[in-house]
């Protein structure tokens, strides 16, 4: 298949970009949940 490398690279870019983006959302969410829990704990302790 001619130019298969370019087709494969484009295919990979689509999924790698979406995958990295989704992972970044999940990590930011996990960090925020931890921060929220920690703030709530601090406020309860006051």
């Amino acid at each position: 298949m001619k130019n298969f490398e370019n087709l494969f690279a484009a295919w990979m870019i689509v999924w790698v970009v979406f995958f990295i983006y989704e992972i970044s959302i999940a990590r930011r969410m996990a960090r925020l949940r931890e921060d929220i829990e920690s703030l709530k704990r601090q406020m309860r302790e006051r």
Partner: protein
Amino acid sequence: MKARYASTIAVAVLIFFAGYAALFIAPDEKTMHAIQRIFYFHLPSWIAMFTALSVVFVANIAYLATRRSKWDSLGVSAAELAVVCCTIGLATGPLWAKPVWGIWWTWDARLTTTFILWLLYISYLLLRGLLDDPEKKAVFSAVFGIFAFLDAPLVYVSNRLWRTQHPQPVILGGNNSGLDPMIGKVLLLCVIAVMGLMILVLLDRYRLEQLRQEFDELRLEQEALALEPSSIGRERS
């Protein structure tokens, strides 16, 4: 939660079939052959981007009209997703262009206005990072978002208004445009799959923004509590 799993599975199945159809079922284009198959995820990523930009535009106007934070959350979520889709479009385009045009990139009207659009929405996201006050951040970014959206219709009409290296529109492009019926069906399947994925990611990003707002509110509450005189102090006075 059940609906969430069901929709994720449905989108995953759609993506699998769309990918299979794009690579193995769609007929080879006569002049470009295999490389034309980039079109099946290049074009849907632009459609997803224009949809996300329209959501940003509507959310920005709705925020300025109502000052409700949910519109700001929706605006920033859709703007980030639009930048992701635009990045995919800008990265996959040159991979198609090099074997077909012989060059990776050219500063024609379509590519230049698209590149400016990408920079505008990156600026939109950066601008939010510069401001601490949530209300100020929302107002400034809503105004900037409305201004940035002016470039979106220009990108769409650029290859109709000017002679560009970028191909003329094949859909809604006048008498000489049109797609082979099979290519059209596979393209439609790919558009539905990418839009489904976009909606799922947008919902996740929106949840993230709501969590950020909850965190900001709690932090303000904690700061207010810290400023209050302690109960011991009150007893002494």
